[in-house]
């Protein structure tokens, strides 16, 4: 099954083909479940003019935030700027184009992109700035807006374990946007904590079938925690 071996040895090979002005779809929610090494590699490559589709843009100095420092990102498609000062500053200065997209709509746009659904209707955002300029249609007397799907030149994904065929599973809430991102990239690269043998992952429990995955790389993760909150004793 050599034709199905997706494992690559280094980050240059993992991100080979990424060029200026491409669209990159990234998994992750906050700093949870982000492909840390693939993001660092994009910084290393210095690729610019990128459109990045990701729920958040990391924090100052970590995650996708490091791509803001050298202005590698032209446009973000995100639901939340959050507490990322550089993101907010570049946005307010007009240096960074931002398409704010409701979180559920963003997830569904990625899924639709991977699933060959060019557009769908949702009530989310109707009557708000998100709905402006979008087609409105009533179903059963309720107004919905039409949202179009998203695909990317690359998808960068963080999984827990993958086998060499690219079958992936995610751990806890580090799953988040990763499975949808994996379906929506022309080239999908998955950075994992552990590479296992085919058959070690139970077939019915695989979150992302290998058909979606072009390259798998074993990464090293810092797994920084954004907000550590402890139970009171």
């Amino acid at each position, binding site marked *: 099954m050599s034709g199905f071996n997706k494992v690559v040895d280094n980050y240059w090979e993992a991100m080979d083909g990424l060029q200026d002005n491409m669209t990159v779809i990234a998994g992750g929610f906050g700093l949870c479940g982000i492909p840390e090494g693939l993001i660092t590699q994009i910084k290393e490559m210095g690729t610019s003019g990128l459109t990045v589709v990701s729920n958040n843009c990391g924090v100052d100095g970590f995650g996708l935030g490091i791509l803001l420092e050298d202005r590698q990102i032209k446009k973000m498609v995100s639901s939340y700027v959050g507490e990322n000062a550089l993101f907010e500053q570049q946005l307010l200065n007009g240096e960074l184009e931002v398409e704010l997209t*409701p979180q559920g709509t963003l997830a569904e746009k990625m899924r639709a992109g991977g699933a060959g659904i060019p557009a769908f209707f949702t009530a989310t955002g109707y009557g708000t700035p998100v709905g402006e300029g979008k087609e409105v249609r009533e179903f059963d007397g309720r107004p919905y807006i039409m949202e179009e799907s998203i695909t990317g030149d690359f998808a960068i994904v963080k999984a827990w374990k993958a086998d060499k065929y690219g079958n992936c599973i995610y751990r806890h809430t580090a799953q988040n946007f990763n499975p949808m991102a994996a379906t929506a990239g022309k080239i999908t690269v998955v950075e994992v904590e552990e590479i296992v043998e085919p058959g070690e992952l139970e077939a019915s429990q695989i979150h992302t079938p290998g058909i979606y995955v072009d390259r798998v790389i074993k990464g090293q993760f810092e797994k920084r925690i954004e907000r550590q909150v402890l139970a009171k004793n």
Partner: protein
Amino acid sequence: MALTRDQIAMRVAKEFKDGDYVNLGIGIPTLAANFVPEDISVMLQSENGLLGMGRYPYEDEIDADMINAGKETVTAITGASIFNSADSFAMIRGGHVDFTVLGAFEVDVEGNIASWMIPGKLIKGMGGAMDLVAGAKNIIVTMTHADKHGNSKLLQKCTLPLTGVNCITRIITDLAVMEVKDGAFYLTEHAPGVSIEEIKEKTAGKLIVPDNVTEMVL
């Protein structure tokens, strides 16, 4: 006396029924989880992909892969399920979550809500709030009745960019509980020690005060 944040959360928790699935926004809504009556259970949905959210972790339970929608470290209850963001919002958008409780900058008499942006000042993004207000069966807004300058947050028409339209049915503030219907706020309860006059004064939108307004029980 205006309610404290904890007291608002206490009143919110009284809305829940045994077996409700509930999504709690950041801030006061999250506190409501601490006041769920002992004889009922609710299951908390966190929109980043967790149904059955538990308490915060002890030091030895901290796990970077287990966070809530506020990006805080968290635990899962026994019997929880974890899923991706598309499935999480399918659950929300499809109306399977019984209650959503969230904060707001403004609410108006049409049930419109503004909660995510103050032009020129604050752009945090809407996160999952637009999906939640479009999808949940029952939406409760919790907030202080007026801002720190004394300006009412209960308006005839929202002035800030909207999060959703015609979606808010119940509001619980530090002063009162109100229903939103027929283009007005209907007062149903006042906080202990808060006069109807004070509520009237701090409500900019059309307020209807029926005869049977009761005092909130906490």
